[in-house]
C-alpha cells in the first residue's frame, strides 16, 4: 500500500508541475505582446551590438479621439509641437487644420480657417492670400506665436497663441531663391527671431529669414557622398540618366528643432551614418566629436529560411527632440524605435516597435518631450498620440547624465552605481562610471570600468594617463631598468655570438674533414 501511495503522490506532483509549466508558457506568450525589457546599443570593437536592459519607458496613455466639432480623429497628421506649458499642437494634414490640446488630450481649440482677431482688421484680409491651410506639414510654437509650414500654399503662417492671424511669410524676393518652389515643410524660430525653414524640393540645408521675412542665406548644407562604384556608374551612364544625377544629390533633412541655446538639431535621411546632426551657427555638425557615427540600427535579417533571402533594415530618422539636459530622442520609422543619445553620441537606450498593440506604431512621424520628461509620439498611420512615461531606471539614467554634464562626477558616479544595482550589465553605466573616474584622475578604476564597458578608446585614454603619471613618479627607476636591460641584452648577445661562432668554426671544419 505504501508503494501505491507513493506512486499516487508522485503522479499528483507531476500533474501539478505540468500545470504550472503550462501556465508559465501561457504567461511567457503574453509577455511577448508587452515586452518586459528595452534595448541598449553599444560599440563592440567597430560593430554596434545590442543588449537588453530593464524597461525605460512605459505607456501612460494613448490619445485617440478628442472633442472636436469637425472631426474627432486625426487624419495623416504630420507634425507635433509641445510648448512650455505642455500643450500639444498637432498638424492634422489630412483635415488641413491645427489642433491644440492639453497634455491629456483634451482639445483646447482647432484652427482650420485662418481668421483675423474679431474679423474686422482690413489690412489682415489684404495680406492673407488664402484663408485655409493646404497640406500643412510643420509647426513651431514660441512664447507669443504659432508658426505653421503651409506647404500647399507655399508659405509660413504666423498665428498668435489664441489662433488668430498675425502675418504670413511667402517666398522672399531674392535672386538666390528663384530656382526653387517655396514648399516649406518644417519651420522653427530661434530665440533671436530668425526663422529657419526646410523646403521639400531643396537640398541646400535650411533657409534663414529675418523677422521681416527677408532672405538671410542658407545654413547647414549636407555633404554629398559618393563611393567608387557610384562614381564609375555615373561616368559610364550617358546623357541625363537618373543614375548620373541621384548619386550627387545631398542627403535631405527630414526634420529639425532649435534648442534653448540656439543649436539646430536635425535628422538626415537616406544616409547610414551621421543621421543625427547638431549644427552650430555656421552650420557645421558638432554632434559626436564630428566623427562618422552610425546612429540607430543597421542589420540584415533572414526573412525566408528556405532561400536565405534577407532584408536590410536601416534606421530612418524622421524626427527628434532634445531635453534641457542634452539627451537627444530620435524617432525612426523603419522599425518604430526611439533612440536616446547623450551629447557624446553614446546610445543610452532604445525602445518602441512597429505593431498594432498599445504603445506600438504603424508609421511614427513626430516626437516631442514635455517639461516632466514624458515623451509624446505622433503616429501618422493610426492618427494616435502615444504618451510614454519614464521608469525609475530611465530617471536614474537621465539624472546620471545630467550630473555628469554639470561636472558633478562624484554624484554622477553614485547614481550610475545605483543603476548598476538594477542592471549589472548595463554597458553605458560602466562607461559613464569610467568617464567619471577618468575626470577625477582615478585612472586605475577608470580602466577597470572601461574594460567592463568594452570601450577600448576610453581604456586607452585612461591607460596613457596612468602611464604618464607612473612615468613621472618612477622616472629614474624606469630609466635604470631600461639601461640595465640594454646593457644586459648587449652583453648577452656578445657572449652568445662568441659561443655560436666557436661552434660554427667547429662545425665547418668538422664538416670539411668529413667531405
Amino acid at each position: 500500500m505504501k508503494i501505491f501511495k507513493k506512486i499516487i503522490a508522485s503522479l499528483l506532483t507531476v500533474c501539478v508541475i505540468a500545470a504550472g509549466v503550462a501556465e508559465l508558457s501561457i504567461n511567457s506568450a503574453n509577455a511577448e505582446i508587452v515586452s518586459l525589457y528595452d534595448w541598449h546599443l553599444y560599440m563592440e570593437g567597430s560593430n554596434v551590438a545590442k543588449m537588453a536592459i530593464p524597461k525605460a519607458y512605459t505607456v501612460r496613455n494613448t490619445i485617440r479621439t478628442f472633442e472636436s466639432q469637425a472631426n474627432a480623429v486625426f487624419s495623416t497628421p504630420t507634425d507635433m509641437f509641445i510648448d512650455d506649458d505642455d500643450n500639444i499642437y498637432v498638424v492634422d494634414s489630412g483635415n488641413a487644420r491645427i489642433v491644440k490640446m492639453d497634455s491629456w488630450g483634451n482639445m483646447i481649440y482647432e484652427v482650420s480657417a485662418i481668421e483675423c482677431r474679431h474679423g474686422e482688421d482690413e489690412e489682415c484680409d489684404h495680406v492673407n492670400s488664402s484663408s485655409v491651410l493646404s497640406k500643412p506639414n510643420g509647426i513651431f510654437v514660441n512664447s507669443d506665436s504659432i508658426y505653421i509650414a503651409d506647404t500647399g500654399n507655399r508659405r509660413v503662417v504666423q498665428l498668435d497663441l489664441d489662433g488668430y492671424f498675425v502675418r504670413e511669410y511667402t517666398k522672399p524676393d531674392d535672386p538666390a531663391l528663384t530656382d526653387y518652389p517655396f514648399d516649406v515643410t518644417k519651420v522653427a524660430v530661434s530665440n533671436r527671431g530668425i526663422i529657419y525653414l526646410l523646403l521639400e524640393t531643396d537640398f541646400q540645408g535650411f533657409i534663414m529669414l529675418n523677422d521681416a521675412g527677408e532672405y538671410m542665406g542658407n545654413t547647414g548644407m549636407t555633404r554629398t557622398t559618393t563611393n567608387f562604384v557610384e562614381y564609375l556608374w555615373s561616368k559610364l551612364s550617358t546623357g541625363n540618366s537618373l543614375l548620373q544625377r541621384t548619386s550627387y544629390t545631398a542627403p535631405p533633412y527630414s526634420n529639425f528643432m532649435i534648442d534653448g541655446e540656439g543649436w539646430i538639431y536635425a535628422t538626415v535621411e537616406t544616409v547610414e551614418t551621421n543621421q543625427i546632426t547638431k549644427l552650430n551657427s555656421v552650420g557645421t555638425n558638432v554632434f559626436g566629436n564630428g566623427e562618422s557615427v552610425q546612429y540607430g540600427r543597421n542589420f540584415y535579417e533572414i526573412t525566408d529560411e528556405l532561400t536565405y533571402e534577407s532584408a536590410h533594415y536601416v534606421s530612418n530618422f524622421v524626427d527628434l527632440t532634445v531635453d534641457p539636459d542634452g539627451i537627444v530622442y530620435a524617432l525612426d520609422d523603419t522599425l518604430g524605435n526611439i533612440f536616446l543619445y547623450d551629447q557624446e553620441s553614446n546610445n543610452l537606450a532604445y525602445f518602441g516597435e512597429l505593431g498594432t498593440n498599445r504603445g506600438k506604431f504603424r508609421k511614427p512621424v513626430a516626437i516631442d518631450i514635455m517639461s516632466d520628461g514624458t515623451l509624446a509620439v505622433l503616429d501618422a498611420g493610426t492618427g494616435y498620440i502615444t504618451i510614454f512615461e519614464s521608469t525609475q531606471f530611465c530617471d536614474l539614467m537621465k539624472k546620471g547624465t545630467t550630473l555628469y554634464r554639470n561636472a558633478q562626477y562624484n554624484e554622477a558616479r553614485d547614481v550610475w552605481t545605483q543603476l548598476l544595482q538594477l542592471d549589472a550589465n548595463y554597458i553605458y553605466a560602466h562607461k559613464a562610471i569610467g568617464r567619471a573616474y577618468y575626470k577625477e584622475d582615478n585612472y586605475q578604476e577608470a580602466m577597470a570600468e572601461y574594460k567592463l564597458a568594452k570601450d577600448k578608446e576610453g581604456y586607452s585614454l585612461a591607460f596613457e594617463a596612468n602611464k604618464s603619471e607612473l612615468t613621472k613618479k618612477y622616472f629614474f627607476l624606469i630609466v635604470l631598468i631600461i639601461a640595465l636591460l640594454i646593457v644586459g641584452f648587449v652583453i648577452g648577445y656578445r657572449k652568445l655570438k662568441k659561443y655560436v661562432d666557436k661552434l660554427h668554426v667547429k662545425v665547418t671544419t668538422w664538416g670539411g674533414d668529413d667531405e
Partner: protein
Amino acid sequence: MNPIQISLMTIFHPMDGFCLIKSDRENFSYIPSIILSVLFVAVRIVSMYLMHYSVGSVEPYQIDIPIEIAMLIAPVLSWIVVHYAITTISSGECKMREVYAGLVYAFVPYIVCMLPIALLSHLFSQSSAGTITLLQNIVWIYCIFQVFVSIKAMNDFTLKKTIGIIILTLVGIVLCWVLILLLYGLTGQLINTAYQLLVEFINIYIS
C-alpha cells in the same frame, strides 16, 4: 649537436645552421622538432591571451583554441607535403621529415620573440598599437626569410631556383586545397546518392 645549439646556429649562421639538420642524417633526433612545433602552437595561443586588452584585436573569450590549432596545422601540413613533392622532382636533397625539421627550426625566432612582445604590449595602448603590430610583422618576415634560407641551404639551390620552388609550392597548395574541397563536395554527393538508392531499394523490395 643539441637542438638549442642547432637553433642558435640557424639564427646566427643560417646557411650552415640549416645544413646541420641533414649533415648527420642517421643520428638526427626528431623529438626536439616535435617539441618545438608544440611550443609554437602554445606560444601562439598564450601570446593571444597575454596580449594587452587595448592592443589585442581578439578578446580572450573570442579565442577558439581548436580552430586556432587547425589554422596552424592545415597550412603547415600542406606546405610540407607539397614542398616535398616538388623538391623531389626538381633535384632537391631533403626527405620529408627534414622539410618538417627545417620549417620548425625556421620558426624558432617566433617562439622566442612572441611572448616578450605580448608582455611588451602591456606598455602600449590602442593609440600606439601600431608599434606592437610592427614588431609582430618584423618577426613574421624574419621567420619567412628563415624558411627561404632553409630551403636554399638544405637543397643547395640557387637564389632563382629557390624563389621558383616557393612560388610553385604555393600554387601547389592552392591546387591541393581546391582538389580537397572538390573531393569533399563530390563525396557528399556520392554518399547522398548511395543513401537515396538504399532508401529506394528498401521501399521497393523490403517494405
